[in-house]
């Protein structure tokens, strides 16, 4: 009996090859036309959302971190505004100690300092309440910490006596730890330096022992550099 080529071939193999070819064409088109960036809190990843209400000295209003991002920003572009986020707890002793440095950094890199010729760096604090004994925070305590006013306890001392001057940057209410969990922050204070396009450039968790101020000076573009 004479067999013709393909007579006994199973149609399932041919079909499978055709469908898989179609599938891989789709995958290749996506691979060739996009460069996806993962969302996360590691350096090089897109910063996750940070939402809630923030206090800026005059009251509480809606906060959305995404409003800071400029997707058209390019590396070296000095006009883009960078963002520093500090995850802190008003009852964490180290956060209280570092409040002075945060205030100095915020003033030095804000654009009002004539000695800083680099891109503007916006500072944001996300104030949480850690699940530790003695950590009992509130919005009133966040206000007292930021404005350095008396009448509330911050880490067993009056908030008005914390080091440094009153802060002029916004404090986001994260007492329910929503943002902290989303950002997978393991302890306070934690710092993130974020590029104007929303990509995390530096984090204190990934660079132990490295100072936030040094990171800003190294990474944020300057006219004189």
């Amino acid at each position, binding site marked *: 009996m004479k067999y013709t080529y393909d007579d006994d071939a199973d*149609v*399932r193999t*041919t*079909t*499978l090859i*055709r*469908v*898989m070819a*179609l*599938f891989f064409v*789709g995958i290749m*088109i*996506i691979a060739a*036309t*996009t*460069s*996806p*960036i*993962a*969302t996360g809190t590691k350096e090089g990843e*897109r910063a*996750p*959302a940070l939402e809630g209400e923030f206090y800026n000295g005059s009251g509480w209003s809606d906060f959305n971190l995404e409003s800071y*991002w400029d*997707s058209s920003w390019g590396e070296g572009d000095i006009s883009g505004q960078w963002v520093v986020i500090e995850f802190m707890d008003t009852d964490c002793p180290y956060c209280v100690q570092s409040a002075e440095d945060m205030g100095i950094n915020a003033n030095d890199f804000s654009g009002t300092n004539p000695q800083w010729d680099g891109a503007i760096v916006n500072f944001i604090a996300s104030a949480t309440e850690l699940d530790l004994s003695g950590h009992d925070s509130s919005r009133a305590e966040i206000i007292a910490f930021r404005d350095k006013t008396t009448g509330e306890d911050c880490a067993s001392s009056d908030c008005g006596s914390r080091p440094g001057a009153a802060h002029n940057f916004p404090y986001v209410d994260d007492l329910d730890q929503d943002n902290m969990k989303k950002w997978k922050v393991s302890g306070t204070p934690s710092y993130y330096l974020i590029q104007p*396009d*929303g990509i995390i450039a530096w984090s204190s968790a990934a660079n132990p022992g490295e100072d936030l101020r040094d990171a800003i000076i190294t990474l944020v573009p300057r006219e004189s550099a």
Partner: protein
Amino acid sequence: MDANLQLMLYVIPVLVGLFMILPVGRTLFASLSETIPSLGTERGRVFSGLILTCLAGMAVSFQTLWISSKISEGGNFCASNSILSCDDVIGNVEYNTDPFFGIPWGGIGAVVFGILLYLVYSSSKEPNANWASSYLKYGTYITFAGFFVIVLLVFYEFQMEKICQYCTTAHVANIAAFIGFFRLMRLNQSKDWNTV
């Protein structure tokens, strides 16, 4: 090209496929049966409609995967202040991947529609093979399982108060595919499989 206009590239084949699958297709596509003989039979028409639906479902799933990649780059594709804003849905990192493996829903859709396309395409090529009836059953089960995923994704959309029109097209494609596989499975179990 406008995002909603581009969507029509998927909506039209899904709807044409759906009408071919439904009994009403006999009347609607009767005039085409002379040019395309396979449309002259119930089995041939449902097979054709199902292949078209699965192809469109796979394509729209790839498009949603592409949109999610573009959004992750910082771009936007179909952002809108209205309730119809696929960027808000596909770009929401809390909901845009499956809760177990973190795979984007668009990728899952592309794989599932690829499997469905394989099942229906091979069955259409050899409708009397022993395995064809099993393939039609698998297709019915897979598309039925898709209903649970659709419910979950619609629930997400309710939570976000936004509707992703591209995702909805893929959901409709799954519903159409279920009807098609179910009709073919029932037809396959009847005596009329080779006569209709």
